[in-house]
């Protein structure tokens, strides 16, 4: 099929309102995707990007999901929706053959019943009765495109975040859809992983696939788009070619990250590491480290389900001392063991060799819940960290034991205010928040405890510009109070702008960058 004859997708959304909501999640949005083009929909947290993506891909359907007024046009066939019971019904399986979607949470794309990456890739083809020989070829081709060739026999449950995202993209493109909608495809990917996805997207565009990129960053890939649509509070505030929109007020107001614009301190001295934001405490040599790792080694059992088999070394002889008020960034490729390292700080994982000391005391044998009084850990996936019924209860969990009943709620509210979530405190369930707000809520739950050691696992992922600014202020304030901060991040420019020292974890060892 040539590019000229391939599907074009046009959407006009007068209003889309979720059931039970009074305000539309999207209104007055139009989008047109031509074959082989790259279109970027840019917007901050909660701007409606994911809702738009799911609506275009029929993951959200008029009727079951909400009331839709507008039209969707695919390949010249237009479906009009009036929010009425006799509106056309879309078959999601048929629609997704043409318009595929990769959600922000890549894991939710997977079937969970397939034993290997190869079988997970083939799952959608099996359901479409593709002959086995064709499936084998398609799996091989898709794996090569997404950089999964070496992982085909792995259990999808054991993949790292970046590998999982590549698998989700692979599952979406294996059926060769005409349109591909990607929701934050670069989140939590290391440089190599991002480069592979970029290459894949370029390749798809070159073969005529129309790609829609939903992103809160006007990053390198978005810069290659032919057309930008800026989404703010559920509506389009600007649209045009990137050159017109870069630096525009609409982009700024929407909270879109523009690398280089966000971090004036980093941009001010191009090519040079910026000065650390604050000196790490007075007389550092005399201060006892807030956190110290001595010769820490760790390995996972190869058969993790049974806890048996030889151990795969992840950390080797790691020494690390973080002084109060010091901010340390740890970088490294996907799967290097950065999250594993952080989980040693509060005892969620125990070293097989060496010792971890918090405020001068070894935490060996001390329950995690007790260590938690001194160590706050922000998980890589905020959803793993949130479990309460309301935002306020979430932030207040465990504070009573530390500060007493009277003070606990005040501290929770103060922490929520610090990350801009005061409005959501009482009535909103954490699962209803956008991904960016979920991360900020998780951060608030950690900050409210005022720990001596703050461990942040990929804190910047999924945050828009407003969120990043809040994160930056919170980390600086914590360090100023004398908290020892260790953050794991792929975002080297953020690390340079924020941290006093940058370490790289590679091959299980830490070294200064």
């Amino acid at each position, binding site marked *: 099929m040539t590019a000229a004859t391939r599907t074009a997708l046009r959407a006009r959304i007068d209003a889309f309102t979720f059931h039970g909501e009074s305000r539309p999640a999207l209104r007055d949005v139009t989008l047109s995707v031509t074959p082989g083009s790259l279109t970027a929909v840019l917007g901050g947290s909660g701007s409606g990007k994911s809702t738009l993506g*799911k609506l275009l*891909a*029929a*993951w*959200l359907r008029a009727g079951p999901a909400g009331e839709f007024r507008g039209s969707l046009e695919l390949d010249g066939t237009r479906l009009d929706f009036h929010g009425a019971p006799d509106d056309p019904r879309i*078959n*999601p*399986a*048929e629609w*997704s053959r043409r318009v*595929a979607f990769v*959600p922000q*949470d890549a894991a*939710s*794309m997977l*079937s*969970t*019943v397939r*034993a*290997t990456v*190869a*079988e997970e890739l*083939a*799952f*959608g083809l*099996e*359901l*479409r*009765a*593709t*002959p*086995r020989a064709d*499936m*084998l070829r398609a799996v091989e081709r898709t794996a090569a495109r997404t950089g999964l060739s070496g992982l085909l026999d792995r259990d999808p449950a054991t993949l790292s975040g970046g590998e999982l995202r590549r698998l989700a993209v692979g599952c979406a493109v294996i059926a060769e859809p005409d349109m591909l909608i990607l929701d934050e495809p670069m989140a939590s990917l290391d440089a190599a992983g991002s480069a592979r996805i970029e290459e894949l997207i370029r390749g798809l565009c070159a073969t005529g696939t129309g790609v829609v990129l939903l992103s809160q960053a006007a990053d390198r890939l978005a810069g290659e788009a032919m057309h930008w649509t800026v989404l703010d509070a559920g509506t389009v505030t600007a649209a045009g070619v990137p050159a017109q929109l870069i630096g525009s007020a609409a982009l700024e107001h929407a909270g879109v990250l523009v690398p280089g614009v966000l971090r004036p301190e980093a941009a001010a001295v191009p090519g040079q590491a910026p000065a650390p934001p604050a000196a790490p405490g007075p007389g550092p040599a005399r201060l006892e480290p807030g956190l110290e790792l001595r010769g820490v080694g760790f390995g996972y059992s190869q058969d993790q*389900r049974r806890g*048996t088999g030889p151990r795969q070394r992840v950390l080797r002889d790691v020494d690390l001392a973080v002084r109060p008020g010091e901010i340390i960034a740890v970088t490294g490729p996907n799967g290097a063991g950065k999250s594993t390292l952080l989980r040693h700080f509060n005892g*969620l994982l125990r070293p097989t060799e060496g010792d971890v000391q918090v405020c001068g005391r070894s935490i060996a044998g001390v*329950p*995690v*819940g*007790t260590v*938690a*009084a001194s160590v*706050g*850990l922000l*998980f890589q996936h905020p*959803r*793993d*960290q*949130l*479990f*309460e*019924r309301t935002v306020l209860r979430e932030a207040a*969990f*465990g504070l009573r034991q*530390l500060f007493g009943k009277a003070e606990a709620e005040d501290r929770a509210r103060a922490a929520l205010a610090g990350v801009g979530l005061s409005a959501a405190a009482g009535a909103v369930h954490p*699962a209803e928040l956008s991904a960016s707000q979920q991360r900020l809520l998780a951060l608030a*739950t*950690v900050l409210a*405890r005022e720990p001596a050691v703050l461990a942040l696992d990929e804190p910047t992922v999924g945050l828009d510009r407003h969120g990043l600014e809040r994160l930056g202020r919170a980390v600086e304030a914590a360090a100023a109070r004398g908290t020892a901060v260790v953050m794991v991040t792929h975002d080297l420019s953020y690390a340079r702008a924020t941290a006093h020292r940058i370490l790289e974890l590679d091959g299980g060892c830490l070294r200064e960058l």
Partner: protein
Amino acid sequence: MTLRLHPFTALTAAACTAVITTAAASWPLSVAVGLASAVLAVRRGVAGRVLSAAAVILVPLFLSLLVLHGLFFPEGHTVLAAWGPARVTAEGLRFALELGTRTAACVLVFLLFSFTVSVPDLVSALSARRIPPQFGFVLASTLTLLPAVAGRLERIRQAQETRGMVIRGGLWSRAGALRLQMIPLVLALMDDAGSRAQALEARGFGSPGPRTSYRDVADPPAQRLFRAAAFVLAAAAVAARLVVSWPAGGPS
């Protein structure tokens, strides 16, 4: 290289062993089958899981058998001990032993099968036999649900511990912690199910029509022959049992 069993071969072997053991009704055979299952479980590295699951099922069963038949067996006349209406009779104990060992053998055989079968192979084999793929998916989900729930529970526990919940080794401490984890667990699983349903629908899960299978499960002729033989043997055992225990005088 170890022999790779087709899931149907393993299932047939387990089912026929259970049928033959039940039909034979001989406690030495039941004990032998039980021991053989335990040995195989050790060799396959699943002994811990098989035996602990078996204990959960069998210990209450043995206790109830002892009470029911060991103490109150009306046909028993060789009284070994008596406390009022309760009499321990040799016949009662023998009956409890028969029934207990037979059930234990069947439970062990099926547990061994369920802990060693490759679920993906089973699902693939089922779909190759034109069993509706939804059935295979539900079966696979059921078998993968427990690890998924355990994984989610573990993450909730870690999140709570990270925020100061102290869980000590004691039973009460663990039970108390579990109570706090239940609501988040159910909500999280429902949330997961909702988003996964959208993805599954989009990948064509709900659409009717034929399916194919990427996974190729080898079914060598020898294993097919074995399955046929096992069926014949099991049928013969049942027939023999019927003939032996048919009431004297035969059918009228």
